């Protein structure tokens, strides 16, 4: 029996797909539950393929009706709730699983992806009030045509609907199981996926075992030109998946034990912690992203794989704030001056060790809609920034700090976390504001506290990261959409032009036409400067030589089911 040992960097919370939203939990649920569609392991850019359906759904001409045909003969893993019987996966299970995200009694963190999306959904939710959803009431938008056929009807065309359904959150659960473990669904994930949960010690250890009843799945792919693909195919071709019988996942939050455990072969796959980057990688100063594995590791046959994360980091201004917010030129100048003085490149060099690129466009590389040529970040030029502030009447007072144009003192508060990395960033922020001669205060707090304060409009500046839920620009562009103010639009940015463009973009599929709209929106964001663009990180993953079949995927969290160990 092959045992794969991996680690999570932070504690998970549970395994009910309708209840968890953190990356670490999803990593596990992805291997237990089967969504209707999934991604091809090897294809880049990521390509959707059928998972429990026999083919990709047929979509009506207006793009609103999706019809899925399930493969028969897929069974749930055994559970006492099934009373010893084999339980087959049916269309009703998917209907139930999707409806759970609508259920106001469950508070699914993903409800924003389905709210108002299905015909009749809103009414059903309203009828439930604050109680539980009536799952048995007929719903036009989510219809079970027969045992194996599911029909989803959308209120509006949506080009991202299939990628959403590929998320682990939309894997199928069995209603009996949920009912049987009503109080503790997080600990009893029962799905049709390749693995089942064997053991769970919250926050410390998770053990998965291959699902013995998993449908027969044989790896079959034709490799492209990529040598990596070839290696994967060579290792896996014709083998039944999964090959690894047991996966032991430990939660290791500290970098040192994680790294040493990997080097000591107590872990089979691991990322490279910040602190080990320089010793593990040989970085080319001409092109910091061009790296190779350090000689000593390469000699051991350790494999290195890299991937730019579909993620952006940025700092936003509270656009409703009387000091930093607002559309007037002096306010824009203030924001611009700060943006011009923040040494992103220096921070990348020092904190990220060069393993990131400056962010220049709201949509990151690897996500549909990205424009690699666009330079959205202003040139780093603190001297000019100072002169700019002078021009707009932010005069340096007797105490050496600038005042507002109306003579009132100028002080800006930056919200931040409390980790040591936060501290490193803060040092750059302090430097930024020092060169601008603006008083800076830090408001440190736990994430949820800051989030709440921001919700109440009490923050002035804060940094955030946003990772792709699905590989489409819309997922990012909506971050500045006026209607999302106070929700995902943390900056409370309200710009009529932007909103108009965004709404127009929704009606378009990915393509040059939409890209033009995105460019225009990016220009607005750059001109108005609600954000200061941060960086986009590069992830490096290492695996020992005996791990076969590994290829990082931009959207799948894990490749465990495709791995083979040849010790």
């Amino acid at each position, binding site marked *: 029996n092959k045992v794969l040992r991996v680690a999570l960097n932070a504690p998970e919370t549970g395994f009910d797909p309708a209840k968890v939203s953190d990356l670490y939990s999803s990593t596990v649920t992805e291997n237990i539950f089967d969504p209707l569609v999934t991604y091809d392991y090897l294809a880049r850019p990521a390509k959707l393929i059928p998972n429990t359906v026999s083919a990709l759904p047929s979509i009506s001409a207006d793009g609103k009706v999706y019809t899925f045909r399930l493969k028969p003969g897929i069974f749930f893993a055994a559970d006492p709730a099934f009373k010893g019987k084999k339980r087959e996966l049916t269309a009703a299970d998917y209907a139930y699983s999707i409806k759970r995200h609508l259920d106001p009694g469950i508070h699914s963190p993903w409800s924003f992806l389905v709210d108002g999306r299905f015909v009749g959904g809103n009414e059903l939710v309203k009828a439930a009030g604050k109680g539980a959803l009536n799952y048995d009431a007929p719903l036009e938008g989510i219809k079970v045509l027969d045992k194996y056929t599911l029909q989803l009807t959308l209120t509006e065309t949506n080009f991202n609907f299939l990628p959403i359904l590929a998320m682990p959150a939309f894997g199928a659960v069995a209603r009996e199981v949920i009912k049987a473990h009503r109080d503790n669904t997080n600990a009893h994930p029962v799905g049709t996926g390749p693995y089942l949960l064997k053991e769970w010690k919250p926050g410390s250890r998770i053990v998965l075992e291959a699902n013995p009843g998993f449908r027969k799945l044989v790896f079959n792919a034709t490799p492209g030109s990529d040598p990596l693909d070839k290696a994967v195919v060579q290792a896996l071709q014709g083998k039944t998946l999964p090959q690894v019988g047991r996966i032991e996942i430990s939660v290791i939050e500290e970098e040192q034990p994680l790294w040493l455990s990997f080097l000591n072969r107590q872990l089979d796959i691991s990322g490279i912690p910040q*602190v080990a980057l320089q010793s593990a990688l040989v970085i080319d100063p001409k092109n910091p992203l061009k790296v190779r594995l350090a000689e000593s590791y390469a000699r051991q046959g350790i494999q290195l794989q890299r991937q730019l994360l579909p993620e952006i980091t940025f700092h936003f201004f509270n656009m409703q704030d009387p000091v930093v917010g607002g559309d007037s030129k002096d306010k824009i100048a203030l924001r611009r001056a700060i943006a011009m003085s923040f040494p992103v490149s220096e921070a990348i060099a020092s904190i990220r060790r060069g393993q990131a690129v400056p962010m220049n466009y709201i949509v990151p590389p690897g996500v549909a809609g990205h424009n690699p040529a666009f330079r959205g970040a202003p040139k780093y*030029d603190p001297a000019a920034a100072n002169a700019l502030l002078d021009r707009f009447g932010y005069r340096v007072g007797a105490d050496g700090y600038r005042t507002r144009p109306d003579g009132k003192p100028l002080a800006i508060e930056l919200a931040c976390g409390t980790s040591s990395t936060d501290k490193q960033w803060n040092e750059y922020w302090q430097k930024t504001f020092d060169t601008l001669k603006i008083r800076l205060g830090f408001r440190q707090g736990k994430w949820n506290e800051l989030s709440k304060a921001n919700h109440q409009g009490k923050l002035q500046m804060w940094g955030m990261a946003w990772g792709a839920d699905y590989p489409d620009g819309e997922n990012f562009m909506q971050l500045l959409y006026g209607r999302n103010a106070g929700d995902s639009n943390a900056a409370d940015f309200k710009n009529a032009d932007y909103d108009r463009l965004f709404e127009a973009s929704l009606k378009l599929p990915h393509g040059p036409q939409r890209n033009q709209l995105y460019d225009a929106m990016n220009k607005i964001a750059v*001109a108005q400067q609600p954000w200061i663009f941060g960086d986009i990180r590069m992830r490096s993953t290492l695996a020992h030589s005996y791990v076969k079949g590994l290829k990082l995927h931009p959207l799948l969290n894990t490749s465990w089911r495709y791995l083979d160990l040849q010790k």
Partner: protein
Amino acid sequence: MPHSSPPPAAPHPHNSLTRIGWRRLRRDRVGFAALCIVGAYLLLALAAWSGLVASHWQDEVAHPYAPPTLFAGSAPHHLELDAADIDAADRRAASAAAQDSSGATGLSADEDPLAADLAAAEQQSAQYRSAGQARADSLPLGADQRGRDVLQKLLQGSATSLQVGIAGALLALAIGTVLGALSGYFGGLLDDLLMWGYSVFTSVPDMLLLLAFAAVSGRGIGTVVLVMAFTSWTGTFRLMRAEFLKHKGRDYVRAADAIGAGHGRRMFHHILPNVGHLLLVQFSMLTVALIKYEAILSFLGFGVGVTQVSWGAMLAEAPAELLQGYWWQMLAVTLCMSLLVTAFSLLADSLRDALDPKVK
């Protein structure tokens, strides 16, 4: 009344324990050396605090992680990138992309509301430009991640840490001693009440208390001192309570009662010197613990801010540095702290001996 005899030739000095203690301390070579070291630290801290030395600790005077001069050869030399490398790579990527792209490449001047002002600002920016100064390749004690001088940080940090450690320890000790004395000495209802407070206080997780203190008094060094004092008085309290419980029944305390000494006098004049040795040890240990505790507070975000530096904050950087082989900052802090702590503890021991009449 007996008639007093004529006054003796030389009046006897009033030999209080403090005076004798001081005399003995001066005689004890180890103790006196320790005292000098502690004194030197205090002076340095004072100098750093008033800006006489190390006021420019925040300047980036060397390359990131520049090694100590003596070990320049043997230090690990990792490639340290700088902003120019990143910029160059970024420019290269952009120009490559612009060639085969139809999309926009950025904000043009007419789209930018600030374009005119920016252009003008660029003209006027000369006064703000400063020539980048050359960065050193090595420093006496090396440099940190941002190229700041570890020596300067160390000096500046000693001011903060001493202030935090000593003030915090004194405050904690004062609270713990007074409450513990009251509790142990009087017993009864007062004891019950104080024990109640103690139990309540110790049961609530420190993290919550920290958050609460931070919420009340904001963040900063004052808060750090308060937080540390208010979370670490409990040990002293418990200890003093036990000692007072033990001593209050002793004959010498009863004798003090008999001569009419009030409760306060019995507690603080009679019993306290007899349990003072514990306080001394407690003080030296608490100071050390608080200096170290400050590191954890820094770590949790309650410590000193980025405009200040402390030994704790420097130590908090150690884990990341050590794994990369940059040992100098940690070693410098540890040595510096060890010296102080050792001197401090030896001083406490010597003081303890000096104040014990049974030892000569």
